């Protein structure tokens, strides 16, 4: 492994060389090591959650009960969601933050390296607990990743405690990660790196970190209430004891809506980094990007009840949440406009990161449009809990968040490893993913509008053809990701050497360090002008 080789090289210069073997990774406080751990863990979880999605699509390939019983199907939809949100997307962004933020702001490492080690190493335990519960008597969580009460309290099995503790640990991990990011960005910027010179990836991550600090504790509160309701006789969500199950949804979505921006704001930062590089132009409207990101973050706190239109809200509430939600499309529109304006009359070249970035812009916007449709209260009564919703959030999370992570991986992989990835394999990965992801998710809009409900292992016969197509898209998309795994491992093992500035149009401090990035960078702060 080239990273290991590089580490040995640098340990001559530094008296505190890292221990070798497993202990190196276990005890590491190096931001690059921890970043790699996060990214590899995220990839592993992406494949795990993906395998569950394959089970779901195999069951739905034909109408009727085919392969798994409904209880197991429910566990698959639930754990697929949890693993993808908390195991794949969030750790991937944290890994990218660990790798790139210190290098982008000219800092030698993250501000709190030991906490950084801990915030990664508790994650595998969280997911071990969650995944183990699938094999226990009664099975794992089967109440949907949103764990609405009373499904998660009155009607859940005793393994719910494991789910609760797993979510607690994931929450603690993200909170520690977020604290680390904020302290690093606030305190460790190189001299001359003023706020309005920060790379946008750093800006979007700073805002994301504040969102995490604001809402992850609320999620911890919600799962704690589920725990005490189920095991200790409290009645937070039990009407019989003076509580209210609808209150669960308010508390959950107070976390849940900012959470979806936690999963997309760093993606905005990545796209804002990649598009200017391959358009060979400065980013259009840097300041407006910063303000747009902040406004999206602020607005995310006042729109949560748009997930709950059908719970019976007064008209005033429905109107408020409808208009507030639609308002978010304004700053998001600013961002999309700026990306397109950056490309406008640029000398564009279509390297793989750029391809993913362009796919992101088009397909994320499509997901945004279906979101806008869902925001319309009267229409939402029709769309609620159908496959239309599934189509919407997979467009924003798969072709949005996941595509941006792929783009980032291709963009920085040569910097991390010192080797160029295999262009042929990468092309195959991109085109296979792009086509299959649309075969997978686009028809879901139609079956959703026609009334196919989500989270049900069977469906009416008229949806059979569409579901077969969707499943085929799903299988192809799933297999295509194995190509990505191949690209990454091939690139780590070797390949054409790359210069320090891998992309000729790239700007930023990370391109001033050697390729592969040495174990210690910016021990002396660089000068930024």
């Amino acid at each position, binding site marked *: 492994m080239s990273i290991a080789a590089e580490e040995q090289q640098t340990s001559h210069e530094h008296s505190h060389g890292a221990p070798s073997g497993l202990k190196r990774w276990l005890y590491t406080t190096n931001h690059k090591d921890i970043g790699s751990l996060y990214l590899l863990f995220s990839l592993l979880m992406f494949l795990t959650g993906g395998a569950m999605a394959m089970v779901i699509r195999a069951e739905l390939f034909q109408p009727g009960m085919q392969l798994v019983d409904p209880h197991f199907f429910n566990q698959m939809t639930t754990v697929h969601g949890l693993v993808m949100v908390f195991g794949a997307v969030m750790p991937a962004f944290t890994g990218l933050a660990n790798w790139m933020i210190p290098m982008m702001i000219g800092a030698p490492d993250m*501000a*709190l390296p030991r906490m950084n080690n801990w915030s990664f190493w508790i994650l595998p335990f969280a997911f071990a607990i969650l995944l183990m519960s699938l094999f226990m008597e009664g099975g794992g969580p089967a109440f949907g990743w949103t764990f609405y009460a009373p499904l998660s309290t*009155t009607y859940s099995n005793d393994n719910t405690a494991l789910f609760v503790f797993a979510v607690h640990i994931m929450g603690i991990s993200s*909170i520690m990660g977020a*604290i680390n990011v*904020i*302290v690093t960005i*606030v*305190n460790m910027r190189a001299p001359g790196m003023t706020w309005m010179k920060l790379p946008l990836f750093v800006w979007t991550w700073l805002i994301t970190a504040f969102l995490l*600090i*604001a*809402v*992850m*504790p*609320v*999620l*911890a*509160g*919600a799962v*704690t*209430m589920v725990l005490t309701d189920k095991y200790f006789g*409290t*009645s*937070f969500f*039990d*009407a*019989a*004891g*003076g509580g*209210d199950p*609808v*209150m669960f949804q*308010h*508390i959950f979505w*107070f976390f849940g809506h900012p959470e979806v921006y936690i999963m997309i704001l760093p993606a905005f930062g990545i796209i804002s980094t990649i598009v200017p590089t391959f358009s060979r132009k400065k980013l259009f409207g840097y300041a407006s990007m910063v303000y747009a990101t902040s406004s999206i973050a602020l607005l995310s706190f006042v729109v949560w009840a748009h997930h709950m239109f059908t719970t*019976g*809200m*007064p008209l005033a509430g429905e109107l408020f949440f409808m208009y507030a939600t639609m308002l978010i499309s304004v700053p998001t529109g600013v961002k999309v406009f700026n990306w397109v304006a950056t490309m406008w009359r640029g000398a564009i070249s279509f390297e793989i990161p750029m391809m993913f970035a362009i796919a992101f812009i088009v397909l994320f916007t499509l997901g945004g449009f279906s979101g806008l449709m869902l925001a319309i209260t009267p229409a939402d009564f029709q769309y609620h809990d159908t496959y239309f919703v599934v189509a919407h959030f997979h467009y924003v999370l798969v072709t949005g968040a996941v595509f941006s992570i792929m783009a980032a991986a291709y963009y920085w992989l040569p910097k991390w490893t010192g080797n160029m990835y295999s262009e042929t394999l990468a092309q195959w990965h991109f085109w296979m993913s792009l086509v299959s992801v649309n075969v997978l998710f686009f028809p879901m809009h139609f079956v959703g509008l026609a009334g196919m409900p989500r989270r049900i292992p069977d469906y009416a016969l008229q949806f059979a053809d569409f579901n077969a197509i969707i499943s085929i898209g799903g299988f192809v998309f799933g297999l295509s990701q194995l190509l990505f795994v191949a690209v990454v491992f091939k690139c780590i093992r070797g390949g054409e050497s790359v210069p320090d500035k891998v992309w000729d149009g790239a700007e930023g401090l990370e391109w001033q360090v050697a390729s592969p990035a040495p174990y210690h960078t910016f021990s002396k702060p660089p000068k930024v002008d």
Partner: protein
Amino acid sequence: MHTPLLKKLILAVLGMFAFAFALVPLYDVFCDITGLNGKVDLVVAEKSKEIDKSRSVDVSFTTHAKSSAPFSVKAQQYSVTVQPGKLSEVEFVAQNLSDKARIMQAIPSVSPGQAAKYLHKLACFCFDQQSLEANQTMKFTLRFYVDTELPADVQELTLSYTLYDITSNTAQITQAPNISDQLLSVVEHAHQRGHNNG
């Protein structure tokens, strides 16, 4: 160098954790003020002075015992048609299904939620805790009317009761305050209002 900022951030995290629990009373206060979500006051209402004879509303009754509560309460009529403002009476038969004396508390809820504040109860077994001997059967009368202000688009109302067993809670009440305290104070308040109104 990092400690001051770190302290602030940890404080923010703890604050937000506390905020999640603060949402619980905030939610209740909000629903009480606005009458949202079918939450009904456990307070005796005054009689209506006028009757709207131009329309009628169907009021249905359902009861639902929490799985562990051994009570059965049934309305004699499944549903009644009433004119807004007119006082109506419905008989309920309650039974303790267990071989032990128990105390029952019924919690009413109205759907659609927006109509909750338009259903007024003058007498309801839900105002009090009801002591039932082992296997005892009791009759209760619900006296209620629908407000003349009820929006015209609401033509049907459902009044549902959730029954729960508070025998063990009431035994503890003198020793330790617990969740049913809040409920009891509401009930006591209802009593006082009832006396004031004669």
